[in-house]
């Protein structure tokens, strides 16, 4: 299989398409996970959109977008970006932190400008620019809202994502903010960031606990499943749901003032656009850009929902 891909790559390389780069052009390589679920779908949408916009505005700029299905595939992509596309800058959202630290370091050794997005590398000296959301803050903002709405003795259930660092950061942020409030956590279970598991886990929570005051779904795909389960049990009047991410379907509900999903917490897939734009600035202008950019996780409320609503995005 690998040989087959290599053959395709080689044939692309020797075809005129592969070497159509104008002289003096700058190339930015973008390596991100493939669109396997809602959030990465949004990530791909914003990456593609930014590529088209920047290339149209700057004829001397070329952006190569590669998507990977696993950490090892992403490492291969990085090699290809150097060997075939001869990139000047790299924007990378690592599949996993530790396994990709070495491969990104190798790219850096070629004198390439490195922008790391969302998931930090194990070795922070490698990156020139770091753009990320703040998972711990996302948990804290969600818990803070719970504290405003609930009082001591009220009950929450939590649906977690996939057991990963991201999920732990969100969960720990939430728990530390909630600490001392007297609000009970009835149970937490993994719902794997998808709608079907959100639905079944919530169904079981509803059979198990007669009194639930709020649900922290921490992801909008999970939240969609939770909404259906709550409706099926006809308990939409006794609880509310806080998701996370900023999916358009949920933002639309918040805008409409739905009591079941009164707010959402942003964790924007458009951060990839921020990262590509920043990296492009290096070639377009002379402004200093190196450093860390941590995007906030604001609470999306009916008042401000409009500014977080992307009707064209798949997420």
């Amino acid at each position, binding site marked *: 299989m690998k040989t087959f891909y290599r053959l395709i790559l080689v044939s692309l390389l020797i075809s005129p398409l592969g070497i159509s780069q104008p002289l003096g052009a700058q190339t930015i390589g973008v390596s991100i996970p*493939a669109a396997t679920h*809602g959030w*990465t779908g949004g990530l791909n949408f914003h990456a593609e959109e930014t590529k088209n916009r920047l290339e149209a505005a700057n004829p001397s700029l070329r952006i190569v977008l590669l998507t990977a299905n696993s950490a090892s595939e992403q490492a291969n992509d990085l090699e290809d970006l150097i060997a075939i596309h001869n990139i000047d800058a790299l924007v990378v959202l690592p599949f996993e932190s530790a396994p990709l630290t070495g491969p990104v370091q190798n790219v850096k050794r070629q004198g390439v400008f490195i922008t790391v997005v969302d998931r930090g590398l194990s070795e922070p000296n490698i990156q020139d620019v770091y753009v990320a959301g703040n998972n711990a803050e996302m948990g804290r903002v969600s818990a803070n809202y719970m504290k405003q709405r609930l009082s001591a003795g009220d009950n929450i259930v939590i649906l977690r994502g996939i057991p990963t660092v991201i999920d732990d950061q969100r969960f720990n942020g939430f728990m530390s903010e909630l600490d001392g409030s007297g609000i009970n956590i009835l149970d937490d279970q993994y719902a794997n960031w*998808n709608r*079907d598991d959100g639905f079944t886990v919530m169904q*079981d929570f509803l059979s198990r606990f007669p009194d639930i005051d709020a649900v922290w779904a921490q992801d909008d795909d999970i939240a969609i499943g939770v909404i259906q389960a709550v409706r099926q049990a006809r308990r939409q009047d006794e609880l509310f749901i806080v998701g996370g991410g900023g999916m358009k379907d949920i933002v639309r509900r918040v805008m409409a003032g739905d009591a079941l999903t009164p707010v959402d917490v942003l964790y924007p897939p458009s951060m990839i656009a921020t990262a590509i734009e920043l990296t492009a600035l290096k070639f377009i202008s002379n402004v200093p850009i190196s450093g860390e950019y941590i995007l906030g996780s604001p609470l999306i409320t009916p008042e401000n929902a409009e500014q977080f609503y992307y009707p064209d995005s*798949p997420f």
Partner: protein
Amino acid sequence: MTDRNFFSKINLKAAGPFVALFALFMIGVLVNDAFLSVGNITNILARSSFIGIVAIGATFVITAGGIDLSVGAMAAFISGCMIIIMNALSNSIDSSIVIILLAILASVLVGAFAGLINGLLVTRAKIEAFIVTLGTMGIYRSLITYMADGGTLSLNFAIGDIYSEVYYGDLFGIPYPAWVFLTIAISGYILLKKTVFGRHCFAIGSNEKVALYSAIHVDRAKTITYILQGICVSIATIIYVPRLGSASGQTGILWELEAIAAVIIGGTVLKGGYGRIWGTVVGALILTLISNILNLTDAISNYLNGAVQGIIIIVAVYLQRGSWRKSN
């Protein structure tokens, strides 16, 4: 001695899955009072119908010595097709019922055709079923991601509202998906046990060469098992789509392995030649029960859920296969 006599009298091979189901049921009762609530039991029945219906199709494929890894991706692809068709028709046809019926018809056609492709590639192109269906699995999985633009396809709200009755509605207190599951199981049982085609499946799975020399149309029968599998996937999809009204690249992930697990737990032999529909039904119920019980207790760390599932699956199969059964 008396023990041996006891074991040789009851057919443990047939009773094994039922014993495991009963044991799990008892564990559920002990773990949480909510387990026996009407709401929870109907949830379990409705949930197990997806994997159960797919697994009934898989029972035919596996009995005839084949395997189909594409079912999960196929379910996602068919869900996507149904949603796109219904959304497109919502502009030109007024009656939601007509739109839903057309989508159901399309679903069965797509499922049967997808099964036919798998079957022809196995029988005519002479490629191993494992490779053919691994390939089609990748194709359908990419197609649904492409159709959804990497995101999620959502069903038109007005149609979804009417269609949702198919999943959430019930007859005599039993949810519709469970009735569909039961109907498919009875039809599957008759087809596998009481017809010539069913006997041919057993014969082909036992020894394909001998079946061929016995004037059985081996290629035709094998192709039909894949078509049946495709139709079963489409029926599972027809009751899956109304649940959440959406399809994405995540839909039906690992259904193929769950369906195969249900079939094997039920006593069908993975290398073919012997199949049991009721065992498969019990196998699907067992798989659903495991995750339901794990959600009803916090006695076991979340991180270990997969380990518990693995142990129960192995024990369930050991109950009917283990060497302790042999009296000599």
